[in-house]
Each structure stands twice: as structure tokens, then as C-alpha cells.
């Protein structure tokens, strides 16, 4: 226990270099719960098939299969995009920002959350492209020398988005891979079958742990962390510009960038907990992903949750304080209009239930924590629904008002994207080391030196 009364164990006392290598590498090499994995994979792969079917039907029939209309042109596609990209923020936050802040408890979860980031960004990237209407011309968004001498409009937040999301994906991938290289070498050296040796060997690029290699590796890793830190903050800020640069009441607000970033980290940590709590139990990783790690993640959620709540309060306050009739009407409609129940559900899921995290019993009980995290995940999806739909459905002119009802294809695409995300997650757990082995060894070395 630390002086503040928190559980202090970062890594179990009895761990040795060999034991962590066996334990973490063994999950990828031997795979202890083959039947359970296969059963789970069948379900999530089925959901992924649903995604393929929904996208296929969308490509065949067009965006008319969704519930979108004018004025609510954005609908589920953008709600899902913002939700997924938000989830993708925890990974780089944990890996980069917490690395620079010397938060050692991040060591055993950073690999996993980085992978989660990549998969979430893949899901996120799908939605704006599918929403284009003609996704096969997506390359119009990129600056390339085309024969009509056209250029993308660089003053548009939608073009900024293209750059922000693609940069975020690439940098996250590089960061993840650089960290993964030494662990792939471990798997290469531990693998017994030829096929595995070759596959992991190709991924390890001939890594041999040379001192000079480590020096450059660490230098590059630290630089990437430094580069990723402002990047994480910029990506959701740019996403928020999609809304706040527009003139629409409910979108046109200067609080959006910080409020979106806080919300992104909030939902990202919730998703990490939702994934890691079952995995920790199934694969018996309690010695590495300790109660202290869960407790710290819960603390981050509590803090970012209040930042998000502050955002909600400020939105309402500024609507009143501005004296603007449209802003006030928007706020009143948001809370008491036809979508009022969605707004109050959001308040319950995102602001009320997470207050349970003040209790240390909840923070250190994995089932309770799982349920609170689930509430936050759903709450953050609902938040984006409220922002997108309630702002659009009643703008300045009453003749332009309409309702938005999602169709079965909207729900199928959302559920399918969860399937895509989980399919990638299952494959990752099965074939790659989900905890950084070399960084766990560093923790053990530090404990041996008495520096932990």
C-alpha cells in the first residue's frame, strides 16, 4: 500500500526474466485457451461478416439505406466515426504521455492499448469513407497531381481530418511496431515450429539486442513518444473542428477541442478496461496487470469524466450567457425536445454512474469496474449522437426541421464495426505478445536494483 492507501504492487515479486517471457510469449506460441478463443472468434467473426454484408449492400444501393436525410445528413456514420476515433485515443495516451511522465504502471498495458488504438482507428476511418456516397473516389481527398488540376480545399476541417486521422494511424503503427520488434525476436527464439520461427523472425527483422541497436531503438522510441504526445491532443481537436467551425447552434463552440480530447481519453480508457478485465482473468495475467493498474485507469476516467461534465455544463451555460435565441432554443430542445430522453440517458451514463469510481472498492473490483466502463462506453456513443443529431435536426428555419430514425442497416453497420474491431483484437491476442515483454523485464531489473 502506498501512503495514499492505494495498492502499490506494479509487478509481482517472484517474476523473473524467463517467467515473464514464458507467460506472455506462451499465450501467443502455445495458446492456453484454444476452445474458448475459437468460440469467441466465431461470434466476433460473424459480426464482421455482418459488417461486410452491410458495406456490400451500401455500395450496391448507396447511402439511402441509412436513415440520413436533409437536414440530418451526418447520422450514424459520423457518430460512429467520432466514437471510434475517441476510443483510439487511450492507446497513444497511455504509451506516449504516460511514458514521458514516468508512469511505470503503464508498462504492462501499453502494447495492448496501442493495438486497440490501431484497430479503433481502422474502424473509425471506414465511416467517413463510406459516408462519402461514392467511396471509390476517396482519393479525391488527397493532394495528388490530377489531370483537372484540382486541389483539395486546405481551408476545410474535413480535409484537415484526412491528414489528422491518416497521420495518427501511421504514427501509432510505427510506435507500436518499434516497441514490438524486440518481443518478436523473443518469440522467434522461443518458437519451436519452423513456420512460427520464420514468421516471427521476419517481423523481428533480425533483431539481436545489440547495445548499439538498443541505444538507437530507445532514442527513436522516446522521440516517437514525444511526437505522438501533441499528436494525440491534435487529432480529436481536429475532429472537433468538423463541428465547431460550422455556424450551427450546438456545434459552434470554442470549448469543443479540449472537451472532445477529454471525452476521447475517457472513452478510450473505458474500452481498455472493458477488454482487459476479461482477458486478465481468462489468461491469468493478474500478476502483471495488477489491481494498481486498474485503479489508476479508474482514476484517469474519474478525472477526464469531470472534464467532460464541465464541457456539458459550459455548453449549457454559454447557450444562456450568449443571449443568442438560437443557442438557447437548441439547448432547450436538446434537453426537453423529442430527443430529450437520449440527453438524459447520456447524463446518467456519463456523469452519474461513473461517480461510483470515487469508491476505492469499485476501483479495485474488476466486475464493478467493468460495468462502470461499459456505461461510459455507451454513454460516449450517446454523447456523439446527441451532438450530431440534436444540433442538426432543428436549425434556424422551422421548415428545415426533421427527425432522424436509424434503419436496420445503420445498426448493422455499427454492430459490424464492433465485429471488425473485436476480430482484429482476437487475432492480436492469439498471435502477438499482448504485453511488452522487454519492458516487463526492465521493470524486473529495476526491482532487482531496488529502484521500483
Amino acid at each position, binding site marked *: 500500500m502506498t501512503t495514499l492507501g492505494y495498492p502499490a504492487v506494479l509487478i509481482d515479486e517472484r517474476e*523473473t*526474466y*524467463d517467467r515473464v*517471457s514464458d507467460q506472455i510469449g506462451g499465450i501467443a506460441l502455445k495458446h492456453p485457451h484454444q476452445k474458448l478463443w475459437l468460440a469467441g472468434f466465431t461470434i466476433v467473426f460473424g459480426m464482421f461478416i455482418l459488417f461486410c454484408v452491410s458495406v456490400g449492400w451500401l455500395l450496391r444501393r448507396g447511402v439511402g439505406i441509412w436513415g440520413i436525410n436533409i437536414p440530418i445528413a451526418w447520422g450514424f456514420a459520423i457518430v460512429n466515426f467520432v466514437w471510434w476515433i475517441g476510443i483510439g485515443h487511450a492507446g497513444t495516451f497511455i504509451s506516449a504521455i504516460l511514458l514521458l511522465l514516468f508512469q511505470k504502471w503503464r508498462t504492462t498495458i501499453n502494447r495492448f492499448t496501442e493495438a486497440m488504438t490501431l484497430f479503433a482507428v481502422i474502424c473509425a476511418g471506414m465511416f467517413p469513407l463510406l459516408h462519402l456516397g461514392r467511396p471509390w473516389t476517396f482519393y479525391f481527398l488527397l*493532394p495528388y497531381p490530377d489531370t483537372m*488540376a*484540382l*486541389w483539395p*480545399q*486546405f*481551408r476545410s*476541417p474535413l*480535409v*484537415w481530418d484526412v*491528414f*489528422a486521422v*491518416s*497521420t495518427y494511424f*501511421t*504514427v501509432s503503427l*510505427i*510506435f507500436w511496431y*518499434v516497441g514490438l520488434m*524486440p518481443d518478436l525476436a*523473443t518469440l*522467434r*527464439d*522461443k518458437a519451436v515450429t519452423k513456420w512460427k520461427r520464420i514468421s516471427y*523472425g521476419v517481423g523481428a*527483422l*533480425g*533483431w*539481436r*539486442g*545489440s*547495445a*548499439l*541497436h*538498443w*541505444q*538507437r*531503438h*530507445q*532514442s*527513436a522510441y522516446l*522521440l*516517437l513518444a514525444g*511526437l*505522438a504526445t*501533441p*499528436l494525440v491532443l*491534435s487529432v480529436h481537436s*481536429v475532429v472537433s*473542428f468538423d463541428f465547431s467551425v460550422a455556424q450551427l447552434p450546438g456545434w459552434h463552440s470554442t470549448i469543443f477541442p479540449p472537451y472532445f480530447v477529454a471525452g476521447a481519453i475517457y472513452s478510450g480508457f473505458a474500452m481498455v478496461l472493458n477488454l482487459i478485465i476479461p482477458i486478465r482473468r481468462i489468461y491469468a495475467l493478474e500478476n502483471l496487470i495488477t489491481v494498481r493498474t486498474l485503479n489508476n485507469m479508474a482514476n484517469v476516467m474519474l478525472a477526464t469524466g469531470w472534464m467532460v461534465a464541465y464541457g456539458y455544463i459550459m455548453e449549457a451555460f454559454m447557450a444562456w450567457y450568449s443571449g443568442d435565441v438560437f443557442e438557447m432554443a437548441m439547448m432547450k430542445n436538446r434537453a426537453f425536445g423529442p430527443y430529450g430522453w437520449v440527453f438524459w440517458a447520456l447524463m446518467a451514463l456519463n456523469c452519474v454512474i461513473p461517480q461510483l469510481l470515487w469508491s476505492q472498492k469499485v476501483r479495485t473490483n474488476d466486475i464493478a469496474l467493468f460495468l462502470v466502463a461499459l456505461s461510459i462506453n455507451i454513454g460516449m456513443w450517446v454523447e456523439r449522437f446527441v451532438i450530431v443529431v440534436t444540433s442538426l435536426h432543428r436549425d434556424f428555419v422551422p421548415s428545415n426541421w426533421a427527425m432522424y430514425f436509424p434503419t436496420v442497416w445503420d445498426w448493422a453497420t455499427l454492430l459490424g464495426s464492433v465485429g471488425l474491431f473485436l476480430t482484429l483484437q482476437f487475432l492480436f491476442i492469439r498471435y502477438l505478445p499482448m504485453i511488452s515483454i*522487454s519492458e516487463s*523485464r*526492465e521493470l524486473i*531489473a529495476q526491482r*532487482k*536494483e531496488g529502484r521500483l
Partner: protein
Amino acid sequence: MNNSSVANVAVARPEHPVAYQEPAVYGLMAEFEEHEQLLSAAKRAYAEGYRRMDGFSPFPIDGLAETLGHETSLVPLITLVGGMSGGLGAYFMQWYSMGHLYPLNVGGRPLNSWPNFIPVTFELTILIAAISALTAMLVLNRLPQPHHPVFNVPEFQRASIDRFFLCIEVSDPKFERDRTWKFLESLGACKVSEVLE
């Protein structure tokens, strides 16, 4: 850094090999159980005058590369140059395309509307810097390199798991097989072995 040693050994080989040929030796390798042992061994080897050597460990050891005489890494400089060219390039692209190639008058605002160009400039700075950091790390480390003589030592498999190694190469001017062997043993190595090419 190993190319010269490979070349030297290759020259020493007879032009028409006879039925049995002594395999060329790359160096001698000492195995340690703890990272502090490797660090102090590297210090003593450097003090002894050995220069062409390398340490191997399953996790980064603070100060090991510096002990072996590799003071600084070029990676930060390359990353800085990459990031700066990414940022300047991105701003130039936007200024040239929006101001000259495809000028659009939006509400009478200046064509060089710099605040609007900041997000893309920022993102491309980060993107090119990150790609430069990765490329610099791989190219300077000469990776990918599928094979290296150190992999010929069977015990070396544990270099990525739980053992620490120090390898002194034949090409080192101070290398003398028996003397170096004894020296490595005196460092507290649990095993010394020969690394074949």
C-alpha cells in the same frame, strides 16, 4: 561495422579450398546472468583497450552503449531534419496550391490564409518526423539483417530472453584468442564460447 572483419577473413581463405577447412572465427562471446555483470564487464573490457565489441541484452541497459564507446545517436538529428522538412513542405504545398495553382476567393479573405494551413502543417511535421525516426533507426542499425554470426552460438537464443552477452570481435587490434578468452573468463562470465562466421 562487421563488414571489414568479414572481408579480412575472406581474404585469408585459400583460393582452392581443400577437403577440410577450419571455419572462420568472428569473435569470442561471454555469457552473463545479470545485467550489472555485463555493464561492469563492458567497462573493464573498454579499459583493457578493446574497441570492436558489442553487448547483447534482452532489454535496454542504461549506459551500455556509452560504455562501449558509442556516445551519441544520430536518430534525433535525422528526426529533427525530417520534421522540419515535413512542416515546411506542407506549408509550401498549401500556400502554392491555394494561392497560385487553384486560387479560390472565400469571402474576400487573403489567399495565404495561414491560420487555416496550421493543422495540415502540424500533422505532416509529425508524420514525416515519425517516419524519419523509424527509417533512421532501421538504416543506422542495418536492419533488416536476417543473419548475423552471433546467432551461430546456440546459447545466444537466450539473448532475447534472460541472458546477457559480450562479444569481442577478431578484428579488434588487441584480440588474441587465448588471452581474450582468459580475460572474458576473468570477468565472471558463466560461459565463454567461440562465434563462428
